[in-house]
């Protein structure tokens, strides 16, 4: 290479720094700053006051929404991990490599495909007079109220996160050293002991990453709790939208957003600790 310092490396390195600095870090920093701003006569003025924080964190409805959101996201993460595991296990150990590759292929497709329209389709499917209740009616069951409930919201969360969780779990399970499993067999471990004491610990990182992504996505989602959960009780994301769209209370919405980011950081760090901890 030439000794003369060249612009070449910087042409590749700088665009990301400039773009993400300007349009990712910038907006988020502004949002944090905005949470300390003053709103007077429906106009925001840069300031440093704790008024917005006081008002939001001092209200019962904020904490109600906070705990509902944390609880639902936790439940969604656990449920998704449990529902996904048998499927991931099957894809990792019970099917041919070709089948696995195509299965992953077809799971990636919905992950990138019109979440909003899929939620609308669930609205149709789960409706009081919809197809599912129609079929159940033929065998003399129902009709069940599935929309505008915690159940409806959970169906939505699963639609959002299941494909991703299965993909992540399958990768980590398929990468386990097969010798490890054979060794457990040869040493006389029964299938259950092999699963609990060999396979799950060996795939721990992938399982935790899947669970955390399910939490992050459910925690921030607003479509499922709004259109399938009936927005009662509201989640934090619904709170942000209501606060932003009705009038100029952006600083208060920013408070909610900062609280969400802090929560996600705490969860992510705890998860990294759990994934890589206790390793000698």
């Amino acid at each position, binding site marked *: 290479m030439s000794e003369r310092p060249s612009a*070449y*490396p910087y042409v*590749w*390195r700088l*665009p*990301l*720094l400039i*773009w*993400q600095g300007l*349009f*990712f870090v910038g*907006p988020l920093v*502004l*949002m944090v700053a905005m949470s300390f701003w003053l709103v007077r006569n429906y106009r925001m003025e840069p300031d440093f006051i704790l008024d917005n924080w006081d008002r939001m964190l001092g209200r019962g409805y904020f904490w109600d929404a906070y705990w509902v959101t944390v609880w639902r996201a936790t439940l969604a993460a656990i449920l998704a991990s449990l*529902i996904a595991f*048998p*499927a991931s*296990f*099957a*894809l990792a150990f*019970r*099917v041919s490599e070709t089948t696995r590759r195509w299965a992953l*292929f*077809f*799971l990636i*497709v*919905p992950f*990138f*495909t*019109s979440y*909003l*329209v*899929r939620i*609308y*389709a669930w609205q*149709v*499917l789960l*409706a009081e*007079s*919809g*197809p599912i209740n129609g*079929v159940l009616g033929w065998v003399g069951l129902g009709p069940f109220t599935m929309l505008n409930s915690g159940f409806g919201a959970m169906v939505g969360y*699963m*639609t959002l996160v299941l494909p991703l969780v*299965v993909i992540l779990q399958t990768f980590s399970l398929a990468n386990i050293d097969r010798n490890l499993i054979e060794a457990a067999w040869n040493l006389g471990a029964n299938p259950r002991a092999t699963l609990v004491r060999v396979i799950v610990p060996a795939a721990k990182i992938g399982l935790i990453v899947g669970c955390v992504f399910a939490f*992050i996505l459910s925690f*921030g*989602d*607003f*479509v499922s709790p709004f259109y399938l959960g009936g927005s009662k009780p509201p989640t934090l*994301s619904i709170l*942000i*939208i209501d606060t*932003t769209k009705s009038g100029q209370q*952006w600083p208060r*919405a*920013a408070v909610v*957003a900062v609280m969400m*980011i802090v929560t*996600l950081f705490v969860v992510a760090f705890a998860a990294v600790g759990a994934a890589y901890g206790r390793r000698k």
Partner: protein
Amino acid sequence: MMRGTLFSRFYLVALFTFVFAPIVTSMVFSFNSDRFPTVPLGSFTTHWYQTAFARPEVWTAFGNSLVVAACAAALSTALGFATAYTDFRYGFRFKPAYLALALLPPTIPLVIMGLAMLAWLGRLGLSGTLTGIVIAHTVMGAPFAMAICRLRLSQMDPALEAAAWNLGASPWRTMRSVVVPFCLPALISAFCLTAAVSFDEFIVAWFVSGLNKTVPVMILEILQGNVDPQINAIGTVVFLTSMTLVVVAQLLILKKSAT
């Protein structure tokens, strides 16, 4: 063992049914004559497509979406490729922080991105413009583009570039004649995938868009009204578009990594 395999098959079928049920539902009911979707189905009709696509605002929204997706995908791909190449070729101080910055955006909830973008773009005088949506979608798409390009670069022998330099090619010439051709399938793949990401994104677009609506933002606003089978028709077109993009994106990577 046989029983285990049978259970596995059954479980996988059930899971895939759950995952694809909404997509199939939308497609089926988009051709169903009954206004309120239920079983048994009514008769076959293309009525909802005709009414939906007779509305000029639907065409405008599709036009907006296409323009935004094309621009955001081109920018994301360029940005993603530059970042992936930097990661592949160079080591430098703060590289972990650099990579964190590159990969972080998808972990921030979209509602928060929407609020932050709304405030920021407002200051820049870009709120309510398609440019604003393009900017936001590029931030979100670049990490995916980077991942795809990085995957492809890791299949390239680093000696290839060195060989070109030794033969007298400048770094720029090497990039043009060696690296870019090698990465071409990944570049197209990244373009398709980020186009799909942009085409389907509606939360940030909804915060930022103002009067310039993209397709999913329009769907979101129709959804706030009553049950309307037109959504199934529009939704089916959206599904087919983004599914095609994602399938092409994947086939390009799979085919190349097999060879």
